[in-house]
């Protein structure tokens, strides 16, 4: 008889949870340790807030003329980012660090045009030289932000490591990015409530998933509000302006990574193109928009 266990913890700057059905507590604890260790490893490697992370090392590379030989894992993440950049005609871009920084969520003010123009000079995947496994960043001040991929990838990794360790029923939740280890022991799917953009604790809708992942991209968790106007945390790398889009997009896919990429892409494309693109993609999705005020 399997019991269910829930672990709540913080990792990668967001509230996380591990839901598990296991024989006994020690087994569940083992899965939790696996999850924690893996998340700490990825956080350490890709953090923006550590001076010994790979991201810091890459920032140090910018404008130096040197190149860095990256490990296989980073190379695969960069390849994935390259593919998304190509598919989205430049909308999906992991080099928007300088812009994101400008639209600092905590600053409470909007940046001026000159600052945006300056930041745009340090943005653009095409400015990178990525020839697997060699990376060089010719433009000084440019930096990479893998935040849009790593959290989803981490969810998939934790789910896979738990499966490798013999767990078959459970789910990983990294701040709303979910990866299923396996359906409930009775074979039923995990029922996920999608939060309403305006009422935090109220589920607007439910999505059932029994495999793969579910990711949500939205402006309600992280957004800048100036004079009553919402500025999304999703910035168009071509104009340097926040994107007017859905309140949130949730996508379920064979992996959390794909779900996250699809959700972000739909947000970037905006309400009309985003909805069409999701239709064409054919993945189960849920888009929430605000009515015009």
């Amino acid at each position, binding site marked *: 008889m399997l019991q269910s266990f829930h672990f709540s913890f913080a990792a990668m700057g967001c509230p996380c949870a591990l839901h598990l059905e296991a024989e006994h507590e020690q087994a569940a604890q083992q899965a939790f340790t696996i999850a924690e260790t893996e998340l700490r490893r990825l956080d350490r490697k890709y953090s923006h807030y550590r001076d010994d992370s790979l991201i810091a090392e890459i920032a140090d590379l910018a404008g130096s003329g040197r190149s860095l030989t990256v490990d296989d894992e980073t190379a695969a993440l960069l390849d994935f980012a390259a593919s998304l950049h190509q598919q989205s005609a430049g909308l999906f871009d992991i080099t928007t660090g300088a812009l994101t920084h400008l639209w600092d969520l905590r600053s409470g003010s909007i940046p001026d045009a000159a600052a945006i123009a300056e930041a745009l000079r340090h943005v653009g995947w095409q400015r990178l030289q990525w020839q697997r496994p060699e990376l060089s960043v010719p433009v000084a001040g440019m930096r990479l932000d893998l935040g849009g991929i790593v959290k989803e990838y981490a969810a998939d990794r934790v789910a896979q490591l738990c499966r490798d360790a013999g767990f078959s029923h459970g789910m990983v939740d990294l701040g709303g990015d979910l990866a299923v280890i396996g359906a409930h022991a009775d074979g039923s799917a995990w029922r996920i409530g999608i939060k309403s953009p305006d009422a935090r604790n109220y589920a607007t809708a439910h999505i059932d998933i029994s495999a793969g992942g579910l990711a949500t991209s939205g402006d309600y968790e992280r957004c800048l509000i100036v004079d009553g106007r919402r500025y999304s945390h999703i910035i168009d790398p071509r104009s340097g302006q926040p994107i007017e889009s859905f309140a949130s997009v949730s996508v379920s896919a064979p992996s959390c990574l794909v779900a996250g990429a699809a959700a972000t892409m739909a947000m970037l494309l905006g309400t009309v193109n985003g909805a069409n693109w999701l239709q064409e993609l054919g993945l*189960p999705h849920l888009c929430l928009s605000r009515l015009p005020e």
Partner: protein
Amino acid sequence: MKPLKKSPKPASAPVVPTCSSAPLRILLGAAAALSVSAVHAVVDAPPDPSVESDAAAADQGQKTRTSYRYSEYDEDPQTGRVIGSRERYFVRAHQFRLDQSIGERAALALSGTHEVMSGSSPWYVLPGANGDLIQVLSGASIRDTRRELVATLVTDPTLPDHNTYSASISDEDDYKSLALGFERAQALAPQLTLGYGLSYSDDSLDPTDAIEQNRIEHANKNTASGFASLAWVLDRSSVLQAGVQLTRHDGYLSDPYKQVAVGTDVLRDARPDLRLQTAAIVRYRRAFADANAALHLDYRYVHDDWSIQSHSIELGWYQSLGKDWRLVPSLRYYSQSAADFYSAFFVDSPGRHASSDFRLSAYGAVSGKLNLRKRFGDWEFSIGAERYRSNEHYALGSANDIVPGLVSFTRFFAGFDYGFD
């Protein structure tokens, strides 16, 4: 609550898409390259040596690190007129260190030193008949062993704010020391880190041959010390630190083995039983990313109430050569003024305090060091040499009196560091 509308096509319940659209195939294809399980091996793999821009960051990530150094310290023979042996100190030392991180919460370091000293040491100076100086040294070779153990615990070593607790014990045939220390680093602002700490040491002396040589039989001394420093991140390649250390020594601060020639008598070395010392220190580090090198510049000014002032400046260049080699040349200059009760010898009664210890005289010293390091996977081998010369003429300021006992030495060292997870 704002009204919401659902998108034209809200998601229904299906779990796995039944049809695979062209964009989805591309998306899935791109994600497939990032196989979550294929990377598994990377987790336990040693740090990738192909990361060339920063071979160094890797060795700090290791959970366990052991280090060993062997060194030989050899002082030049005593020159000029001597009574006793010209053969000065020779020290063979073994040092061990174990660094162990205990999760993210703590890091423990244990280091041990075992050194065997032999040779003779300067006792006092006699004036010669024709105005020259005669250095009197211990005749028979002294032999002593020193063992030291230092334990250091750092809590939350990866956080900007962290504490360091240390305890050390040092034991010789004739000298024992027990010390405790506390340090704290605290981020005041993103660019600015405050450091401060206190330490206390309790030392006891039991000189050998005390009765025969008219030495003190037993004595104690204590040292209390405090420091405060500020470190600035100046830009992405440089850091500057400045700080002050205050030290208070009290108890028997004389050297039980040293003597002083006063007229025709030879008396014990006699120093005040209190010494207050202030050190002001500035350290600068600058990385030269293109040259794959770093510059170290350290300056220290010390002032004490025995009226000694000293300046020392040290310049180091840390050069990485390719992925595995490092070459570290460094130069140091030191100069100090004399203690107000120092003299090579005294013609008549000097007052309460008198010392002829060359370490309290006015002199300067120049030294150069070269260290070569080579990595082999998790191992790093280190070999180096230092040459140190001191001379009364190297001191800053006007011409100084001759100090016969000043020391010059050559030091060789070799060892390794080995780190693993």
